[in-house]
Structure formats: structure tokens, C-alpha cells
């Protein structure tokens, strides 16, 4: 349930965005409680990423009212590391030198240790595998100690095995640091495994807003899992036989 007592971490009112004649977001209202893990589902081209980019502050043409925490971090579908900076410098890029008295390098090491990449601190990004690079991107996001973590299909470009490992890592790290999370994805199973609350975006509107009551561990074989899955697929406008 969206808590009304606590001041929401994210608050959107009447969010609207059109590309030419095509209206992608048509009056989105949404509030997300601090520490909530929200997944946003939608077919490709529905404007999920547009919504996330608006929250990240990357969309200047967005109309509406947005309240977001100052401390935000984004993990994109591609790692987007600066290839000319060694891994640890990428992690702390944009952080003030020796903020809170701790040398920046130590901060990078800490974040990299959390994603299991201690031995790659001095590597060039081009030498990393896709999964490793994405873990660096995750470390870079976490090193900022974000109140709001925006994940834009962060597992989309990974192979199936790496994706599973990354999902587990994200779940674990989000639990430890407890930021508010908005995960944009088109993978219904991924949303159910990770999120506390799932939204479906369709035709510019949030047509679904459900709490995920499936108990942990969430196994795909569970009947509750299957139920929710069918419902979400229907909301997405996909017939399950085709999915």
C-alpha cells in the first residue's frame, strides 16, 4: 500500500510527454514511498524509458509536476562507462574529491567490492565483459548513495545466466542500502521476482498498480506467481499463448 503518512520519495502529477503528434505519457500521477521497489512494465515504445528519463532529469521537454530526491542514480541498459577512465575512476566520477573525509579511491574500492569486482579496479572498461561492465555501472550508481535508484532495463543486454546473477545482486544490494527503486523492464517475470509493487504503462496511462503479495522466495512455478503473471500479461495486452 502506498503509505500516506510518510512523505513520498517520488511524486508525479499530470506528467505529459508527446513526440510530435504521438502522446507517450498522458497525465501520469504516481507517488512512490521511500524504500519502495517499484517495477514499471510496458511493451516497447510505450514510454517507460521516457518516464524514467524524466525522473532522471534527462528530459527537458516533459510537462507536469515532478518531485524527486536530489540524490539520484541511473543504471542504463548499456553500462555507459567512460572508456578512457579506469574502472575505479569511473565509479567515483562526478563525486567530489574526498567527500566526507574519505579518499575517493577508497570509496570506489568499497563500491566495487560490493559488486564483486575488487580485482578490476585498475582495468580499462574495454577489457571487461558485458556483465562485469554492468556491475561497474551498478557500483557507480551505488557509490553515490542514491535515495532514488533508476534502473532502465539494466539486464536487457545481458545473456540469460548473467541476467539471473545480476538480478540477484541488485535485489541483495537494494535490500542492504534500501533506496527507492524504479525498475523499468518489459520482462514480467523479472518484475515479479524483484519488485514490491508493479505498474503497467499502456497507451500513456498507468493501467495497473499492484502490490506483489507473492511470498519470498518467489518461484516461477508457484501458482500465485503464475496468476500475477497472467494478469500482468493481459494488462500489457499480450495473450498468454503468444507470450
Amino acid at each position: 500500500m502506498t503509505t500516506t503518512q510518510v512523505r513520498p520519495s517520488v511524486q508525479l502529477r499530470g506528467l505529459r510527454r508527446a513526440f510530435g503528434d504521438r502522446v507517450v505519457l498522458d497525465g501520469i500521477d504516481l507517488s512512490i514511498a521511500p524504500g519502495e521497489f517499484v517495477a514499471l512494465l510496458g511493451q516497447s515504445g510505450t514510454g517507460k524509458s521516457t518516464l524514467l528519463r524524466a525522473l532522471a532529469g534527462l528530459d527537458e521537454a516533459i510537462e507536469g509536476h515532478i518531485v524527486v530526491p536530489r540524490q539520484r542514480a541511473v543504471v542504463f541498459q548499456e553500462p555507459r562507462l567512460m572508456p578512457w577512465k579506469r574502472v575505479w575512476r569511473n565509479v567515483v566520477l562526478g563525486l567530489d574529491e574526498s567527500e566526507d573525509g574519505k579518499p575517493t579511491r577508497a570509496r570506489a574500492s568499497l563500491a566495487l567490492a560490493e559488486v564483486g569486482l575488487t580485482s578490476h579496479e585498475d582495468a580499462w572498461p574495454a577489457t571487461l565483459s558485458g556483465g562485469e561492465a554492468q556491475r561497474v555501472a551498478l557500483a557507480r550508481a551505488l557509490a553515490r548513495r542514491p535515495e532514488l535508484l533508476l534502473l532502465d532495463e539494466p539486464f536487457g543486454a545481458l545473456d540469460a545466466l548473467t541476467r539471473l546473477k545480476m538480478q540477484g545482486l541488485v535485489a541483495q544490494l537494494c535490500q542492504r542500502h534500501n533506496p527507492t527503486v524504479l525498475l523499468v523492464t518489459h520482462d514480467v517475470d523479472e518484475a515479479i521476482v524483484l519488485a514490491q509493487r508493479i505498474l503497467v504503462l499502456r497507451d500513456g496511462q498507468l493501467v495497473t498498480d499492484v502490490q506483489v503479495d507473492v511470498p519470498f522466495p518467489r518461484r516461477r512455478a508457484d501458482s500465485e506467481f503464475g496468476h500475477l503473471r497472467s494478469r500482468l500479461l493481459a494488462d500489457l495486452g499480450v495473450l498468454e499463448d503468444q507470450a
Partner: protein
Amino acid sequence: MTSTETRRTSQPNGRAEDSTVLAGPTSDSVEFGTGGPGGSTLHTDLPKSARIRKKIKPSRTGTGQVKAQSTPVDGRRRHRWRRWVTPIVVLALWQLGSNLGYLSFKTFSSPWQVADTAYQLMANGILERALLVSLARVGVGLFIGVTAGLLLGLVSGLFRLGEDLIDPSLQMLRTMPVLALIPLFILWFGIGELPKVLIIGLGCFFSMYLNTFAGVRNVDVRLVEAGQTLGLSRWGQIRHVIIPAALPSALVGLRIAIGVSVIMLVVSEQINASSGIGYLMTQAEQFFQTSVIFVGLLVYALLGLSADLIVRFIEKRALAWRRTFAGA
């Protein structure tokens, strides 16, 4: 979220791993650790495929000069001496042709004559003085042209206003052959050092400007966005994202500029010069000293070669991140 954390301290392979904290309360939830044994095999697979890509790249573009890493490259290195065969044979035939009288000593000096002349010119300091004069010209000209090209390229690359004010005019000027300006420059600046330096500078300027501009404009917008979400200021973006991203292109510009500068030097020195390598050569032409002309050619070639080596060295240092990727 229900949040009892489960800790697993022992890994199946017995490695001292950090305890894996899982998202769910029981250990048979969807389990993914940060560094189990499965992880390591998965990740060693990927760089291997990347390495294969690296191997193919240099041989396809034919740039050569690949560090030993694989068998075909090792082979190339082992047979390096073969590269010297052709030039040595040509020199030997040339010398033989001169000695047997097929080549006239007057119009086509023998290698030996050229070497002898070079030695004499060095011994009496003529070559050194001429070389210093030429080096100074090319150095100052390059510095002016490269600096101006770099600055204007950055300004018009970074700012729309800069582009509108600078780019169209430069694109128009660019179509004019710089060498055609020599008569005008002589009228304006006389026959001293100034017109020579300016011609060299102008020649270098355009390649530097165009490549810097293109480098800035080709920066991946996704990286710029990433920089924005990381909280980089405008200046931080320029320093950490745009300039490093534009550097490879700017260095290509520098390399072309250096090549052009030697050409400009040669031409400008042959008109109304009273010192320098070009002067040495025009003098030699009047006195029929063919071997001196050959020495001049040799010096010019060495000049171009060493300039290229310097840029390659800079590239190797500044673009280490890319070198690794290209597998050099």
C-alpha cells in the same frame, strides 16, 4: 519486504568468499551470489571472444605493427629482417648502376656520393645550421596552426553560437588551396620568415580544426547523458567526457597537420629563401650539386618520419585505453 537475511559462509569450491546475503528469508529462493564458481567461468568466457576480435582487427585494416600475441603475429616478427631486403637490394643495384656507368654521376648521385656529401655537410656545420632554421620554421608554424585549429575546433564544436560564427566561413576558406596564397603572402609580408611560418600554420590549421570539430560532434550522446546523471558540471562534462572522447580524432588531425607542415615547409623554402634545407637544395640546383639535393630529400624524409614517430608516441600514451581494446 520481509527481510531476514540468510548468510552462507562456505562456498562449494572452498574459496574464502564474502558471505552472500540473499534477498529472501530462506536459502532456496532465487539464488545468485556475487562471486560463486559459476561466476568465474562465465566471465572468463567473455574476454576470450573479445580477444579474438582484437586479433582480427589489425590484420584486416592492414596497419601492421602488432605486438606479438598470436602465431601469425609471432611469425611476422620473426621474419622482420625480410623487410630490409628490398631497400638494401635497391641501394646495391643503384650503387652498382652508378659504378658501371648506367647512371650518370652528375644527374643521379650514387648512394656512396650522397653519404659522403652528407658527412661533409655535417662536418662543416652547414647541414646543422640549415636544419635548425627549417625546424624552427616548421615548429613555429605547426604550433600556431595546431593551437588555433584546436581552440577554434573546440569552440565551434562545443557551442552552437561558435559553430554559427566560425564554421561556415572556415568551410569556405578551406576550399582554397593554401599554396595559392603564397604570392599574396609575399606581397603582404615580404620574403622573410613571417610568410613562411604563416603558410605552414595555415596549412596545419584546417586539418586540426576539422578533426577537432568532428571529434567533439561525434561524442556519444549516451555518455554525455551518463555524465549528466553523475552530476558533472558543464566544465566537468567537457573535461571528463567531451575532450577525452574527441582526443582520438584530434590526434588524427595532428598527424595530418604534421604531414602537411612538411609539405608547406618544402614549398615555402624554395621560394625566396636565404637559409634552411630548401635554400641548400635550390643553391645546389644552380651549381649542379646533385648529391646535395639528395641529402636535402633525405633530411625532409627523416623530418617527416620523426614527426610521425612523435605523434605515434603521444597516441600510445594518451589513448592507452583504446590501445588495450585494439590489442596493440
